[in-house]
């Protein structure tokens, strides 16, 4: 127990001291994860809508595959991205390995299936409700997808936040492709892993509590902005 109290104390000390290194790490964590969530949402939400609205031959197989990709092991994703972007790899010319961009790419791969899958679930339910009306009104496929996405935006927020939750706490993939380089690619999770390895549990725990607080703060801010649970029933 003593260690945990010490960790909490450390977290407060770090925050109150306005430590420049800490702020750099927090900022990079947010920057990488929010970019990844934004990009993954732009891919995943329309993908979920497409799977809900379209009937095609391998639809069931596609949905099953998407659901299983939700459990994609981050370490493996990191490894694959590493190989692709390493100097001798097919995408090596871009020189992206050990940059925040590579970390964003890895996270997008990890959370896009999660966001698409949860979105598909919500959109499929709404589609069965709207089906007759939207067919009757002679809407195009694109209009159907846009209508479904707009009208279930509150449920889709949950999908994106689930993606955020997975990405902000992720360490395996970004450690491999980012390299945990001080002032370049060090984020909260990789810093925690490093301090734990060094045996500085108090500092690691302090960073851990800051990470948890950050996740809670972002969720609350987004809920407040989108006014969930305030109006209507969705």
């Amino acid at each position, binding site marked *: 127990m003593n260690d945990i109290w010490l960790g909490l104390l450390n977290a407060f000390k770090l925050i109150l001291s306005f430590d420049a290194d800490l702020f750099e790490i927090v900022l990079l964590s947010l920057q990488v994860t929010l970019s990844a969530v934004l990009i993954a949402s732009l891919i995943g939400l329309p993908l979920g809508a497409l799977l809900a609205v379209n009937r095609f031959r391998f639809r069931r197989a596609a949905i099953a595959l998407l659901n299983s990709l939700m459990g994609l092991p981050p370490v493996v994703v990191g490894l694959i991205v590493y190989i692709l972007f390493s100097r001798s790899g097919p995408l090596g010319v871009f020189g992206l390995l050990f940059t925040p961009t590579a970390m964003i790419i890895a996270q997008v791969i990890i959370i896009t299936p999660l966001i698409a899958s949860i979105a598909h679930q919500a959109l499929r339910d709404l589609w069965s409700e709207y089906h007759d009306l939207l*067919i009757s009104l002679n809407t195009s496929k694109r209009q159907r997808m846009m209508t479904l996405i707009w009208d279930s935006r509150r449920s889709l927020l949950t999908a994106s936040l689930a993606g955020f939750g997975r990405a902000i706490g992720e360490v395996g993939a970004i450690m491999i492709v980012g390299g945990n380089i001080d002032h370049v690619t060090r984020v909260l999770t990789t810093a925690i892993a490093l301090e734990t390895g060094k045996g500085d549990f108090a500092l690691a725990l302090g960073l851990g509590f800051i990470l948890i607080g950050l996740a809670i703060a972002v969720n609350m801010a987004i809920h407040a902005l989108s006014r969930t649970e305030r109006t209507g029933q969705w």
Partner: protein
Amino acid sequence: MVSTTILPLRLENAVVRKRGKLIIDAISLTFEPTGMTIVMGPNGAGKTTLLRLIHGLERPRSGRVSWNCSADDAQSRQAFVFQTPIMMRRSVLDNIAYPLTVRGSSKSEARKQAADWAINVGLGDALQLEAANLSGGERQKLAIARALIGKPDILFLDEPTTNLDGKSTREIEAILQSAHSSGTRMIMTTHDIGQARRLATEVVFLNKGRLCEHSTAEVFFEGPHSDAARAYLNGEILE
């Protein structure tokens, strides 16, 4: 006004099967360009499926449904009011405006027209409410306004006043009467014989997926040709 009409509509030996069950059994019918057709018959006679077939929500297993124009053209000039109105997760105003925005109207223009329609059907006070908060009668009025805002040549209504009280039913009938007198062709199903007498100019009577009778309202209510229709009007239970 539109110069050409999508009517007459012809059904030739149309058959609909669902999960191996025969729902519509070789019906041939012609709907003329004017009038208010009431489709009657016991539960499971195929009334709803007939409407859905004509509207294009069901495909005929065999036979044909043909309009006096191309299928695409016909599709955009008809509207359907479902038995359980589908409320979109939007305000009343945006629900009514939706068909116009789908067709490419600007949001402000669509909302302006929607506000007029909301007032027409008696929802003028509820514009900004979420549609999901409306009562049963109000939901049906919203659905009718949403159907009429696109100025359809033909409007289908599937038991629009089932489960509504007398006041709502009277208000909805008044809306339908006024749309009919301004030239909208209507095809509507109902279980309410009194309502059919009030509204119908012609009656289509179905039983077990077959067409039993298609005659003018006077003929149907004064002296129906078919035994099934006579029995139904006398309040007997059709097996």
